């Protein structure tokens, strides 16, 4: 649409030119062959030199620059990737070390605890034995004392009762008859005094 208007305008402008400048020149200077050869010559010269310089010197340099940049960027990316992998591996190693040392610490702690428990157990056993021994000894002593106690008491009872009788009556009494009476009494009342 724009183009159509465009060309119409051009067309009319030519019309206008012809009217106004009919005397000056014959229309389009482009169709005047006077300088055609010159234009072709200079075009080939300039374009040819430009093409040679561009193709031999400048464009290879630009393509080189682009290539080297591309490869450098790729290299950098690769290096970054490698470093990331390295750091990942190191992180894993570090984690392993931590978990390993944790396990070790745990086992050391457990060992120490077991040892302490064992020690305590052994000591306790020894002490228990000692205490048991002492208890049995004490019990034996008590038993012995208990066994001897009635005899002694009987003896004391016989002696005191003979002395009492002597003082009361003034006559000597036979020890054996008193002991018979005391034995008889103690056998009858023994349970009341000693329990068990």
């Amino acid at each position, binding site marked *: 649409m*724009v183009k159509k208007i*465009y*060309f119409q*305008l*051009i067309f009319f*402008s030519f019309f*206008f*030119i012809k009217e*106004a*400048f009919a005397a*000056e*020149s014959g*229309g*389009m*200077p*482009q*169709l*005047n062959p*006077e*300088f*055609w*050869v*010159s*234009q*072709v*010559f*200079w*075009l*080939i010269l*300039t*374009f040819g*030199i*430009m*093409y040679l*310089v*561009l*193709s031999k*010197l*400048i*464009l290879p*340099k*630009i*393509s*080189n*620059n*682009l290539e*080297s*940049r591309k490869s*450098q*960027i790729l290299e950098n990316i690769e290096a970054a990737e490698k470093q990331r992998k390295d750091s990942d591996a190191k992180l894993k190693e570090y984690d392993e070390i931590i978990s390993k040392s944790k396990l070790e610490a745990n086992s050391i702690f457990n060992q120490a605890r077991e040892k302490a428990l064992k020690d305590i157990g052994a000591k306790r056993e020894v002490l228990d034995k000692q205490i048991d021994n002492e208890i049995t000894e004490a019990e034996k002593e008590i038993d012995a004392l208990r066994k001897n106690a009635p005899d002694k008491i009987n003896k004391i009872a016989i002696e005191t009762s003979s002395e009492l009788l002597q003082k009361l009556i003034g006559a000597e009494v036979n020890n054996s008859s008193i002991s018979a009476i005391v034995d008889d009494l103690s056998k009858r009342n023994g349970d009341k005094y000693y329990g068990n």
Partner: protein
Amino acid sequence: MAANPMSQFDVYRIGPEIKVGAFDISFTNASLFMILSTVSILLIFNLGSKKNSILPNKIQLLAELSYTFVSKMISDTAGSKAKPYFAFIFSLFMFVLFCNMFGMIPYTFTVTSHIIVTFVLAAFIFIGVTVIGFIKHGFGYLKLFVPSGVPAVLLPLIVVIEIISYLSRPISLSVRLFANMMAGHTMMKVFGGFVISLGIVGGWLPLSFSVALTGLEILVAFLQAYVFAILTCIYLNDALNLHH
């Protein structure tokens, strides 16, 4: 004289007349702008390729962006086989682009607004592409004119049409660029003339139009360079990868 919209296309001699045999190869304003374009291209791309830093500076970025732009354009349209012709298409694109862009500066001369210049470029491309096609495929290249899947009855007609369209390639290629550049510049000149003739009262409308046209023309200048290069790639693609 200056009011003539076509006077901007006049070619005139700068300096003495140089003659080689019967041919006049004098240095003209057209030659001047060809040299300006090529020198600025070489300057920019030389600066852009001098240093190779990982973070490119502006001029290096410009050079590398143009490089990748043209390289992508070629690989997209003509495939990887067109790689040896990269330098030529790159120079072609840059030459046409810079000539077009130089033409956008007021009081300059637009090299590509001359049919002879664009026609020489197009004819060179046409001949080159045809030669490449025959070298690559021998007489098999003529199969280009016989599309597959066409009924036998239509074949004579189609072949004639194909040959005509093939032969008209240099004309369409050159005329497209030349006509676009000439039309744009003529139009800008006409509107500029209107600004003067309508004066301070009515000149604002053509002036604003002229401003808009300048933007459009810069777009056209780029677009035509792109079209010129991409059509070259397409022709090259026909020669390199025979599809028919």
